[in-house]
Each structure stands twice: as structure tokens, then as C-alpha cells.
């Protein structure tokens, strides 16, 4: 059966109480659409890290997931400060997270690195003081 599927969820900045809720919902939906195993695991990590980055650094954002017969494409767009040096942000261990964020166990500087590891293709587009767009592609 070939069926395309697309969903979008808004994510509010600084809303740490709900951190991960959108990703849990997306994982459920993907599972319901027959996505399992390593592909599901990678999609879950990529959405979670992106969701937490919106909450940690941006004012608001949106996670869009599109499933086709041969791929899952996840686009995460936010309105926020943008990323000045993308290469540096991608490095494991680099983080600008404040103490409050670190106290909750975020801010290891691993999120973007993890997303890249889980993606077959990964692109970051960012504009200072406007926002950031992550384009993640996972082949099925």
C-alpha cells in the first residue's frame, strides 16, 4: 500500500514542562504508519533533539514530518536567535545552554551531532535574529 503522510506540530519556546511531548506523539504516529526498528529509533532521536533545541533557544517553532514510500523527511523551523557559527554548533561538546537548562540535564552539546548521526542527509539553514531551519532526511 502506498500512502503519503504529513503532520505538523507547533513547539513553544521555554516550555520545558512539555519537552518531548511532541516527539512522543510523532513517534506514535510513525509507528502507526508501519515505521519500526532502526528507522523509528533514528526519527525519534532527531525529532526529540530538535524539539528540545526549539524549547531551549528559540521563541517558537514548528516540526513537520512527511512520510513517503521511501523516506521520512523532518523539517524543523523556528523563530529565534539563529546560529552564528553552524560548524561550531555541530561540534560535540559545544553548548551555550545556561545553568537552568544544564540543571535539567540538557546542554551536553550533543543534540545536533546526534541528529546528524541519525540522518541520511542533514542540512542547517540559519539567519541571525530570524531563526533556524533543520532539514533531516531518513531513508526507509
Amino acid at each position, binding site marked *: 500500500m502506498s500512502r503519503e503522510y504529513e503532520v505538523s506540530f507547533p513547539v513553544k519556546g521555554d516550555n520545558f514542562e512539555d*519537552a518531548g511531548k511532541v516527539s512522543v506523539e510523532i513517534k506514535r504516529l510513525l509507528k502507526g504508519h508501519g515505521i519500526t526498528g532502526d528507522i523509528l529509533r533514528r526519527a*525519534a*532521536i532527531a525529532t526529540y533533539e530538535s524539539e528540545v533545541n526549539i524549547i531551549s533557544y528559540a521563541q517558537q517553532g514548528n516540526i513537520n514530518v512527511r512520510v513517503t514510500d521511501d523516506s521520512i523527511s523532518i523539517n524543523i523551523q523556528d523563530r529565534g536567535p539563529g546560529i552564528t557559527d553552524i560548524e561550531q554548533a555541530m561540534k560535540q561538546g559545544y553548548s551555550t545552554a545556561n545553568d537552568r537548562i544544564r540543571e*535539567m540535564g540538557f546542554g*551536553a552539546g550533543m543534540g545536533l551531532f546526534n541528529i546528524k*548521526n541519525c540522518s541520511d542527509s542533514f542540512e542547517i539553514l540559519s539567519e541571525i535574529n530570524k531563526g533556524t531551519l533543520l532539514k533531516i532526511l531518513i531513508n526507509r
Partner: protein
Amino acid sequence: MNLTLLTEKLNLEVRCCKDKLDREVSGGYMGDLLSDVMANSKKDDVWITCQSHQNVVAVSVLKEHAGIILVLGKEPDTDTIERASQEGIPLLVTDLPGFEIAGRLYDLITV
């Protein structure tokens, strides 16, 4: 090994999801950095941590952990218990430090 037996052997106290302790445990992961745990823990692991706030629950749901062990006498926040109950993630607590729990767990699971 399931969580019921593990709870007995490690002398853990159960803070939620008593009805979910038949869950099988196949390994463990210890960490307090959420993106480390996201990247490196596995399905059916029990997660050993001292993070007691509610964000741990989403991580365990997404990674399909068997449960969470809070160490060093840390008690889960009320929100954490609420969310873990909704999601069916058992929360277990101990006064022991992570190193000791990890060591004992390793012996129980791999021997």
C-alpha cells in the same frame, strides 16, 4: 530478568507503575545528560540516573526503556510520577549511588 525480580534483588522502592513490573530488562545505561542517554541507551534498558524532573519520562518513552532507577535517594517530582504513570514507565528509587546499582545490575543481567 524482569523488573519485579530486579526490584527485589537490588532492594528498590517502587514509586509508580507497580502493575508494569513484569517488563523484561535486557541491559542498563547510566547517565544524567539527556542527549547522551538519547544517543547511547537501548530499548529494554533500565536507565540509572539522578535526574528527578519530568523530562526523563519522554526520554524513556522514546527509547522504550524498561524503567528508570533514581539513585542517591533522589525522589521523583510529583509531575514526574504523574507523567510516568500516564506513559507506563516504572520509577524505582534507591539510596545507593549509581556506581553500586550499575555494578549489581551488571552482575544480575550478564551472569
